[in-house]
């Protein structure tokens, strides 16, 4: 049974990769061997025999971890990320590593050193990013679930653009040990799936304290599937009206407002909430994320692993040349911006100021969650845009994250849920944000919608 399932996934991944470019490595042999082992050992783990795809910035022993970058193009980590150990123990089978924006920096997957991922709904359009390969692999039916990482929306935004679910858990819900660090106070590993129940099952396996990542909190992991009752009567859903204004595509607006109506009909109470400082989130994010990235990416210097430039006979010259040749333009731009905002004389004006405004954004959420159980917003201001459309305008690209970055800044969980197609048959998603550790509530609310309005459309580029 698991061999057949895995064979199907691997074959689909191979067949569709020329069109979608979703995978950077497909491990046919290893995946089939694991499938056989699981059958022989009668592994009855909660995910026994389930094929999964993993973003190429999460370490899987024996496979590559390029992070979509030339500087780690041939890097093979000698250990598993904690989430991979837990998934493997539960019986899941990693079939390959998925394409992503270089070091998870981007919202379109166009920053991958190995070419953009194509959206299975329209291959002239972006998949979203940075976890575009994982979103696409799930949307095209290659795998039922995939892992990504979400620093400012990198799971939720591509999930929305590809028409699948995407969860960013609470900061500290799961371990980042073995996730290549981008911005450590924001990064979380997230989950893609086509069914809410699958998100719940995978989260139950990977969540929880890990001594290898001290930021994981010692908070009990509930049975997330137990909360999927379909009942949202009396749930209070916050509606931040001011976020449904300027810059929001009309079709997205209507579609998400229709979701609000569905919840009202299901017996949920819709309450007005304010997030007065949400408009500052992008500015705060691009200071904090780039500052942390400039520090985290200092380790890539051609000494201990990865690419080293040739013809550099002196150490400093070797560092500079390696990083010049190894990193792509967006990564360099962000390292430069991060170095600038942290440099002498600017630290207080930029980094400290951003961390103060971050406190205000956090407080907005704490206040809003006194009157509601979850907040609903769009996930992305528009459906998938054309490949090449925003590539020369970094600031326009950053504004794609307007609805998603707040959750990373505040540390709260966020879940993107598909809610229909635009007139051009492109997926639209809505986002549920909740208080700390409220993943069970978010999944419950999403599940109720899924029961009422199942998203059953499949993209033209598909495995089956």
């Amino acid at each position, binding site marked *: 049974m698991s061999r057949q399932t895995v064979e199907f996934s691997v074959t689909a991944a191979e067949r569709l990769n020329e069109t979608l470019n979703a995978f950077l490595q497909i491990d046919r042999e290893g995946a089939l061997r694991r499938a056989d082992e699981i059958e022989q050992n009668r592994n009855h783990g909660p995910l026994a025999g389930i094929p999964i795809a993993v973003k190429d910035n999460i370490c899987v022993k024996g496979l590559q971890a390029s992070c979509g970058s030339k500087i780690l193009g041939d890097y093979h980590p000698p250990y598993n990320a904690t989430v991979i150990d837990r998934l493997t123990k539960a019986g899941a089978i990693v079939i390959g590593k998925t394409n992503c924006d270089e070091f998870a920096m981007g919202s379109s997957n166009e920053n991958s050193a190995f070419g953009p991922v194509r959206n299975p709904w329209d291959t002239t359009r972006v998949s979203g990013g940075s976890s575009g390969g994982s979103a696409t692999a799930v949307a095209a039916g290659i795998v039922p679930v995939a892992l990504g990482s979400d620093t400012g929306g990198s799971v939720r935004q591509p999930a929305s653009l590809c028409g699948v679910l995407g969860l960013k858990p609470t900061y500290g819900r799961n371990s980042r040990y073995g996730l290549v660090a981008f911005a450590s106070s924001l990064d979380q590993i997230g989950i893609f799936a086509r069914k809410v129940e699958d998100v719940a099952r995978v989260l139950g396996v990977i969540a929880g304290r890990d001594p290898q990542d001290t930021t994981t909190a010692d908070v009990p992991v509930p049975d997330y599937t137990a909360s999927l009752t379909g009942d949202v009567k009396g749930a209070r859903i916050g509606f931040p009206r001011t976020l449904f204004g300027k810059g929001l595509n009309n079709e997205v607006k209507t579609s998400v407002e229709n979701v609000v109506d569905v919840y009202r009909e299901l017996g949920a109470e819709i309450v007005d909430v304010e997030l007065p400082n949400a408009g500052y989130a992008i500015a705060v994010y691009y200071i904090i994320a780039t500052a942390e990235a400039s520090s985290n990416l200092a380790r890539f210097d051609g000494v201990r692993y*990865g*690419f080293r430039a040739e013809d550099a006979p002196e150490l400093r010259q070797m560092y500079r040349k390696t990083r010049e040749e190894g990193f792509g333009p967006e990564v360099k731009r962000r390292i430069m911006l991060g170095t600038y905002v942290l440099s002498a004389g600017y630290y207080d004006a930029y980094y400290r100021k951003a961390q103060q405004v971050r406190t205000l954004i956090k407080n907005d959420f704490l206040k809003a969650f006194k009157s509601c159980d979850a907040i609903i917003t769009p996930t992305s201001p528009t459906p998938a845009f054309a490949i090449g459309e925003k590539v020369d305008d970094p600031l326009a690209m950053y504004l794609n994250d307007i609805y998603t970055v707040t959750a990373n800044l505040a540390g709260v969980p966020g879940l993107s849920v598909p809610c229909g197609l635009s007139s051009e048959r492109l997926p639209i998603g809505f986002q549920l944000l909740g208080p700390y550790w409220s993943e069970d509530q978010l999944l419950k609310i999403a599940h109720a919608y899924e029961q009422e309005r199942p998203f059953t459309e499949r993209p033209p580029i598909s495995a089956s």
Partner: protein
Amino acid sequence: MPISQSDIEKVAQLAHLELGEQELKTFGPQITEIVNYVEQLNELDTANVEPAIGGLTPEGAKTNSSREDEIAGSLGQKVALAEAPDPASGHFRVPKVL
């Protein structure tokens, strides 16, 4: 305030990046635009606001502690050096420093 090409060169030095001609030219205006955008934060009075250090929840902050100081397995020299671009006699070899 526009960020000049010489500012860009200085920051590139700090970041250990050797930028090409094209990047030296485009990064100045692009980073200026982004810095101008983030300066909107100055509209907010934050004189009495504590900076949010880290992304931790209260529960996370409470349990944010090192593991017990117990001996545990490690990769070992051979594995740790396996991905090095230029390993030599159990070490990472680098070009000359001076």
